[in-house]
């Protein structure tokens, strides 16, 4: 963070048009400390400038966003990543979240919403778009054996609590965290911790089940 409290943001996207669009959307609310259009340059510059949050395109030549995530996380685990994508493909989303991104939003997100997401990520919280919430509900419905009974290796990680399910459903219905808190009669902080718990499960849960789910979904 800079002296005046503004967050330092780095943009990785292979399309110049998108990069300048993001810069314009963010305006002066944050400081864009750099941008990169390919994996190697991105890793080098991020490690050099140490931004608070990296906005990461999922689809890029040379290994995609995943390659950047893995290379940076190995050296600088304190850099937070927000995945930005136009793709609806479940396997892409799940892949980049499992590689360590703390959130996923689509590129048609509005400027204020994007800023909000960046702040949340910098605070160490997770950001789920409605679509990601839908994916997670779908994936964990399979994992708990509601549709395809697969034995659960670690029930703690492979299942969502009823409360987490409620929170995800509200996100999928388009509710903001504040509205979810009001609806469920809990604090915004509690909503955030539920979402972070889901993120952790998503990153640690049985790899095979999730991959299986994602590929099944693609075929559907």
């Amino acid at each position: 963070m800079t002296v005046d409290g503004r967050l330092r943001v780095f943009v990785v996207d292979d399309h110049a048009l998108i990069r300048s669009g993001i810069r314009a959307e963010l305006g002066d609310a944050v400081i864009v400390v750099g941008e990169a259009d390919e994996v190697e340059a991105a890793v080098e510059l991020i490690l050099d400038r140490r931004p608070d949050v990296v906005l990461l395109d999922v689809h890029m030549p040379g290994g995609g966003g995943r390659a950047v995530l893995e290379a940076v996380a190995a050296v600088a685990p304190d850099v937070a990543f927000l995945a930005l994508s136009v793709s609806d493909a479940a396997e892409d989303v799940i892949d980049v979240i499992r590689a360590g991104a703390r959130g996923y939003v689509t590129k048609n997100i509005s400027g204020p919403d994007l800023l909000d997401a960046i702040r949340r990520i910098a605070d160490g919280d997770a950001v789920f778009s409605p679509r990601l919430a839908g994916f997670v509900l779908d994936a964990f419905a399979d994992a708990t054996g509601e549709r395809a009974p697969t034995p659960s290796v670690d029930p703690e990680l492979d299942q969502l609590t009823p409360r987490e399910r409620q929170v995800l459903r509200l996100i999928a219905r388009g509710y903001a965290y504040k509205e979810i808190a009001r609806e469920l009669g809990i604090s915004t902080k509690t909503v955030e911790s539920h979402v972070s718990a889901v993120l952790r499960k998503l990153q640690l849960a049985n790899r095979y089940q999730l991959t299986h789910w994602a590929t099944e979904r693609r075929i559907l």
Partner: protein
Amino acid sequence: MSARTLRIVAVVAVAVGGIGLLLYMALWVAVPAADESSSIGGRVVRDRRELQIVFAFSTAVLAVLLVLQAVGLNGLGIPAWSLLVAAVGALVVWRGASPAESSRLRDALNAAPVIGSTPGTGWRNVVLRAALGTILIIFGISELSRVGNFTGAAFGVLVGAAAFVGGFLVVFAPWWARTLRDLSTERRERVRAEERADMASHVHDSVLQTLLLIQKSAGDPSEVTRLARIQERELRHWLFNPAMLGRHADQPETFAEAMAGIEREVEDTYGVGVELILVGDCPMDAELTALVGACREASINAAKWSGRPDLSVFAEVEPEVISVFVRDLGQGFDPGQVPADRQGIAASMVERMARHGGRVAVSSAPGTGTEVELILPRSPVDR
């Protein structure tokens, strides 16, 4: 001499030790077609890869022939030789034929009874295929047992044949394998080229046309948004969900397809963006049709009255219940003071759902947007 007379002469000559077949093959390969400058044989000889395929095939044919002769089926004599040499000739024709000729050959082959792929179904074909196969198998067995009649001789013959085949394999196998590999690479390349062509034609037909339309209507922001949205949805389907393209939107087979139909309709007709999130899926039935209908009404209401350019639809299929939420962040209304015409719409939605054991809940207040909740319990049969 006309082509017809030549063919008749060839057929007659086939009877004489198969020489006619060889002659016909040789002419087919060596003489250019009436409207072409080069012969089939010439084309094959000039292409190293084609030449390699033909030679590999020839060695395989030679191996078969020599084995047949070694096990004592040399009674087949000259007809067998000419038949097998003709097979090599057929391969040359197949590989070297001009595109027009090869498509004609392929059509003829596909339409052929028994081995063709076009008439491959139907019980008549199955019977025909089975009868022919059985006759060949019986012939083979009787022929082999005739050879084996010389007691003791059969074993030696088999060992000899095996050694012979082994020898051929040692000499030619790597080459055959490479040729086969080349052939499959060639097929893969062709498939890839077809996919590329598909992609190019799609981009041309739909993306470029839309971009052109957008440029033309640059002065009309709502039209530009509408066009861009239609194109985005089409492209998305094409990239991520090709299976659903081309299906009839008016006859959805599953709940997800029906919901995607609503998304399409509302976006196109009312020019608002619909964010559709689906969890799970199931086949359509009468109750689901009612649910989808109610969801459609709720979405259209939101699109018409909310005053916002977007709305979200969330639908979840669970084992016991299907729930749908249609939500907008628009102006909202006081459910206690609904104008009569809108009450009618709400009532029809409620009635419709109630008939199938479902329920509707509307929550809204001025300034906070509206959410319509549709809940449909599933009958045990559907699960």
